[in-house]
């Protein structure tokens, strides 16, 4: 049913989405925690920057990331100094771009779950002798678990569904940067509608299943409140 190129694209997409999701959970959690707790005036600007990918055309984001990761951009200079070369048109270039692109989908559910906790559970834990790290791991993380679950699912699914940014940063290199969405584009360009159909259907079924699972979970645990 799938050609070898199709399978390669599916495999690459899953790999990209997994790596990006794991990275995003590590990067997004402290950002979400800070946004949920801070009273600093920086909260607004930082929150807006995190949310930018929600409204920007992927081409705009991709364009700036391409420049930043290029030989003269600040990311490019950093990667070159570290001996990693430049990232555009590589798998890791896609990873960096996807982290930016999917950031709001991970930060916002976690941030909302953390903000919904309020001060009280933390105060209670403090009166029970729990220090700041202890409180974070034994109270905040378990109570914000639904937010983390939502964040993981949305982060993964959104990365799978990425197209514009990938095309800008990664181009179309088989096994390196050619993910499913790009592969479908290729099929259509080449008038291979049957193959495009198969892959597209897989994407629809995947996305539907993910969202169905997510909403089903939210409905079953209303008191967990993924607000």
């Amino acid at each position, binding site marked *: 049913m799938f050609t070898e190129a199709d399978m390669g694209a599916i495999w690459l997409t899953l790999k990209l989405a997994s790596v990006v999701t794991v990275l995003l959970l590590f990067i997004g959690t402290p950002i979400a925690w800070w946004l949920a707790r801070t009273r600093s005036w920086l909260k607004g600007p930082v929150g807006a920057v995190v949310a930018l990918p929600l409204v920007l055309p992927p081409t705009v984001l991709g364009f700036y990331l391409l420049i930043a990761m290029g030989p003269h951009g600040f990311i490019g200079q950093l990667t070159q100094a570290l001996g990693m070369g430049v990232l555009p048109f590589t798998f890791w270039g896609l990873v960096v771009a996807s982290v930016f692109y999917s950031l709001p989908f991970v930060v916002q559910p976690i941030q909302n779950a953390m903000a919904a906790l309020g001060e*009280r*559970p933390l*105060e*209670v*834990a*403090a*009166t*029970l*002798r*729990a*220090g*700041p790290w*202890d*409180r974070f791991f*034994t*109270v905040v993380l*378990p*109570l914000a*678990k639904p937010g983390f679950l939502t964040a993981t699912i949305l982060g993964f699914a959104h990365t799978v569904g990425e197209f514009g940014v990938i095309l800008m940063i990664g181009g179309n290199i088989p096994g390196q940067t050619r993910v499913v969405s790009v592969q479908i584009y290729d099929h259509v360009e080449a008038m291979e509608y049957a193959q495009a159909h198969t892959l597209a259907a897989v994407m629809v079924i995947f996305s539907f299943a993910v969202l169905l699972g997510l909403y089903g979970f939210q409905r079953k645990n209303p*008191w967990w409140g993924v607000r």
Partner: protein
Amino acid sequence: MITTATNPKQGLHARFQWQYPGSGASTFSLQVDLALPGNGITAIFGQSGSGKTTLLRCVAGLERATRGYLTVNGETWQSDRVFLPTHQRSLGYVFQESSLFPHLTAQGNLNYAVKRAGTPGSQSLYDQVITLMGIGPLLPRYPSQLSGGERQRVAIARALLVQPRLLLMDEPLASLDMARKQEILPYLEKLRTTFDIPILYVSHSVDEVTRLADHVVLLEQGRTVAQGHVSEVFSRLDLPLPAGDDAGVVWQGEVIERNQQWHLSRIRCAGGELWVRDAGDAVGQRIRVRILARDVSLTLACHDDSSILNRLPVRVMEIVTDRDAAMALVRLQAGSDHVIARLTYRSVEHLKLAAGQRLWAQIKSVAIVR
């Protein structure tokens, strides 16, 4: 009564200045200077908005007083140079509403405290606390499967298991209905007699305070208006204490006789001897009774032909107007204690009451509060 606290090694010394954060809307500030005994229950009493909870939060370190000084049994928790964060203070805190962690069972909530207690807890302490609070059968349940009263009992047990040197309770009964309150009060009484830790108990309920507290700190608009033994504070008329039907005094007494035939007990108090209903207390037992001002009437002569059981010789000390312009509160010396009578001004006029006058107080009912 606060003499025990003059030794800085003992008791709780607190001096706080706290300003409501933000400006404009509220001008509330807390300014207190307290020396409290290192044992028993001290009630922080006052109306809503008088700063009771803020004071308790300052003691816990949950609120940071702009200027503060706090020592607890000789240990400095806050001074100009020191501010111990909450998790380093040896305290237990019971919040007003249920504060159990929803993701842990009752047992899990208790273990959370046990694991973090300063010293490893013994199994016997654990068993003792669980028996005391009567929560054994509740342990496997999640907080959402417990009633409000049960949750509060688990929360109190959790606060005890952290082995605090000071227990802070912020209106632990306020979120419960009358029946639930009655369910928990006996546990709180047992708590005082079983554990020798000082307790700061925030409340706006006269009932709870007269029943539980040994000492009272009366707060009004963030300032201390009075502090002292509960019977001393509640017999004063110059304080913003509850007036009307709630006005009354608290007496401590000792059971000296039990009358089997009439099911009555005779108790000896500083203010005189009283007959009360036999509540099962043995001779020699110390109990506390509350005499409401509305249950006290005055007669010029001692009437033997009355249905009233308790009659005490008294002397008028002062007469003040109650909230209601028709009513007067008369403070009376009885023995070496005081009692308050609530009369109409018409009766005051009729009896020609004046300070120093001697007459008889008839006490219609005496409530045993413990």
